[in-house]
C-alpha cells in the first residue's frame, strides 16, 4: 500500500529581472494507493503531474510531506538508503528513446537493474531477461540491437521490461503512450492491461488524455495546478465526472465522429 501524505514540491525560480519567487508544482497532495490496483491521473501540462510522478519514485525529493510504502516512511531516508529501496518503485518515462542509454544493447538495458539488485549467474540472468522479453512480447532476436535500430513501440516495451524486472510494488507510467502512433498506442495499452493480470503491483498511469485514463483504470484522479481536484473512484464513463475542470477536459476531446454542426461552431474557451 502506498500512502502519500500532503506532499509539496516548491521550486525557486528567477524571472528575467532576477526577482526570486516560488512555484508550487505540487501543492499539497494526499492519497492512498491500494495493492494490486491501478489508478490513473489526468492533468494538463503544467498541472504538476510529472513532478508528482518524480516525487513518487524519489527522483526528486518533496519539499514537505511524507510518502509511505507498506507503512514505511521513505521520506526520512537518506539518498543512499533510498537507492537500496529502488526495487520497490519504478517509473516508465514518456520518451522511450531518450530514456535508454544509446550505447547499451537491449540486453544490457534490461539486465542493468537485475545486475544491481540481484546476484545472478550468467545463465540465470539470461533466463530472466528472456522471460522479461516474453512478458513485454518482444522477440528474443532483438537482444543485441541498439536503441537507434528499434521502433518507438519496441523501445517503449524495453522501458516497460526494465521497470518490471525487479517486481516492484509501485510502477508509475508517465505519459505511457503519448507520442506513439495510434495503432502502436493501442497495442501498448493492451499490453499494459495483459501485464496487469500477470504481475501484481500498484499501477499509476499518468496521462493528459482522459480517454486513456479511463481505458486503463476505474480510479481516476484529476489534477490541476498542483492540486487533485477530483478523485473518481467509479469512473465508468465520462458522465461520472463531477468537477468543472474534468468536464472541460472531456469537452475538449476531439470528436469521435464528424458532424457538420461541429465543424462550423466557433467557440473560443
Amino acid at each position, binding site marked *: 500500500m502506498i500512502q502519500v501524505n500532503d506532499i509539496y514540491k516548491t521550486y525557486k525560480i528567477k524571472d*528575467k529581472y532576477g526577482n526570486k519567487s516560488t512555484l508550487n508544482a505540487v501543492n499539497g497532495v494526499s492519497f492512498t494507493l491500494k495493492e494490486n490496483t491501478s489508478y490513473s491521473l489526468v492533468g*494538463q*501540462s*503544467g498541472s504538476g503531474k510529472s513532478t508528482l510522478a518524480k516525487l513518487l519514485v524519489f527522483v526528486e525529493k518533496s519539499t514537505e510531506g511524507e510518502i509511505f510504502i507498506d507503512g514505511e516512511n521513505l521520506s526520512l531516508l537518506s539518498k543512499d538508503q533510498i537507492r537500496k529501496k529502488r526495487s520497490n518503485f519504478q517509473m516508465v518515462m514518456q520518451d522511450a528513446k531518450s530514456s535508454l542509454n544509446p550505447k547499451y544493447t537491449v540486453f544490457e538495458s534490461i539486465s542493468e537493474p537485475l545486475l544491481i539488485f540481484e546476484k545472478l549467474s550468467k545463465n540465470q540472468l539470461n533466463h530472466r531477461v528472456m522471460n522479461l522479453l516474453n512478458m513485454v512480447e518482444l522477440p528474443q532476436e532483438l537482444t543485441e540491437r541498439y536503441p537507434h535500430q528499434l521502433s*518507438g513501440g519496441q523501445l517503449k516495451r524495453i522501458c516497460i521490461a526494465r521497470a518490471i524486472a525487479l517486481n516492484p510494488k509501485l510502477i508509475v507510467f508517465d505519459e505511457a503512450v503519448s507520442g506513439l*502512433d*495510434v*495503432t*502502436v*498506442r*493501442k497495442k501498448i*495499452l493492451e499490453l499494459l492491461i495483459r501485464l496487469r493480470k500477470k504481475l501484481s503491483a500498484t499501477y499509476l498511469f499518468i496521462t*493528459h*488524455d*482522459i*480517454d*486513456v485514463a*479511463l*481505458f486503463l483504470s476505474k480510479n481516476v484522479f484529476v489534477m490541476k495546478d498542483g492540486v487533485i481536484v477530483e478523485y473518481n473512484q467509479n469512473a*465508468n*464513463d*465520462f*458522465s461520472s465526472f463531477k468537477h468543472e475542470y474534468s468536464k*472541460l*477536459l*472531456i*469537452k*475538449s*476531446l*476531439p*470528436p*469521435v*465522429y*464528424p458532424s457538420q454542426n*461541429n*465543424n*462550423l*461552431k*466557433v*467557440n*473560443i*474557451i
Partner: protein
Amino acid sequence: MKNVLEIKDLSLWVKKTGIQILKNISFGIERGEVVGIIGESGSGKSMTCMAILQLLNKRIFNINGNVIFNNSDLMKMGKEKLKIIGKDISLVMQNPMTAFNPTLRIGTQITETIRVHNKMSGKQAYEMGIEALEKVHLNRTKELMHSYPHMLSGGMLQRIMLAITLMLEPKIVIADEATTALDVNTQAMVLEHFCQMKKNNISLIVVTHDFGVIAKLADYVIVMKDGEIVEQANVFDIFDRPNHEYTKQLLDARILTGGR
C-alpha cells in the same frame, strides 16, 4: 468547383539510396475545403507537404509530378516566382518553438513579417499585428508583442503563429501536425481557429495522425501508408464505410473508451 491546388502523380526518391518515399500521390483541393491527410510516422505525410511547398533539397531528392496552383506548376517555377506564391500558401508546423526566432520579441517578428509583404510604416505594422492577435482571441496583446518566444507556452505560440498566418491572407494553409504537441484544451482552441479559417474560405490541408482532428475539421480524407495513398474519400464515407484494412485499423485504434 475548380480545384485551387492540384497535385498530380507526385513521386519522390532519395537520390543516394534510391529509396522511394512517395508513390504517385494525386489529389486536389477546392476553395474553402479541408483535406485531411492521415497516416502514421513514416507514411510520408510530412514529405508530401514539403514537396508541395517546394521545400525539399533537389540535390538530395528526385521529385516527379506536378503541383498546380492557379494554373501554374510550382515544380517548374524559379525561386523568385515561388516567393510571390509563398504568400498564398502558408505552413503551420508542429513545433512552434522552432518556428520563431528565440532572440527577437514576438512583436518584432510579427511587424517584420507584415512589412516584408506590405509597404507600411513600423507603427502601422504594429497596429496591424495587434489586430491580428485580437482576431485569434488572444488577450493582453501588448504584453504579448513585448515578450520573447521562450516566455510563452507552446499553445500560445501556436496561436500567434496562426495569427501571423491569417494576417497574410493566404489561400491555402498547410498544417503539419499543428496540434500534436498541444494539450487537449489548447488543441480544442487551435482547432476552432482552423474552423474559422475554413469559414473564411481558406483551403486547408491538415496533416495528422489523429482521427479526432480529422473528424473535427476535414471534408475529405486521404489515408497514407508507406508513401502511398491507400484510400481517399469523403469524411463520412471514411468513418462509415472504410474500405481499406489499414483505415479500419486506424479507426479502430482511435477509439479507446469513447466515453463508454
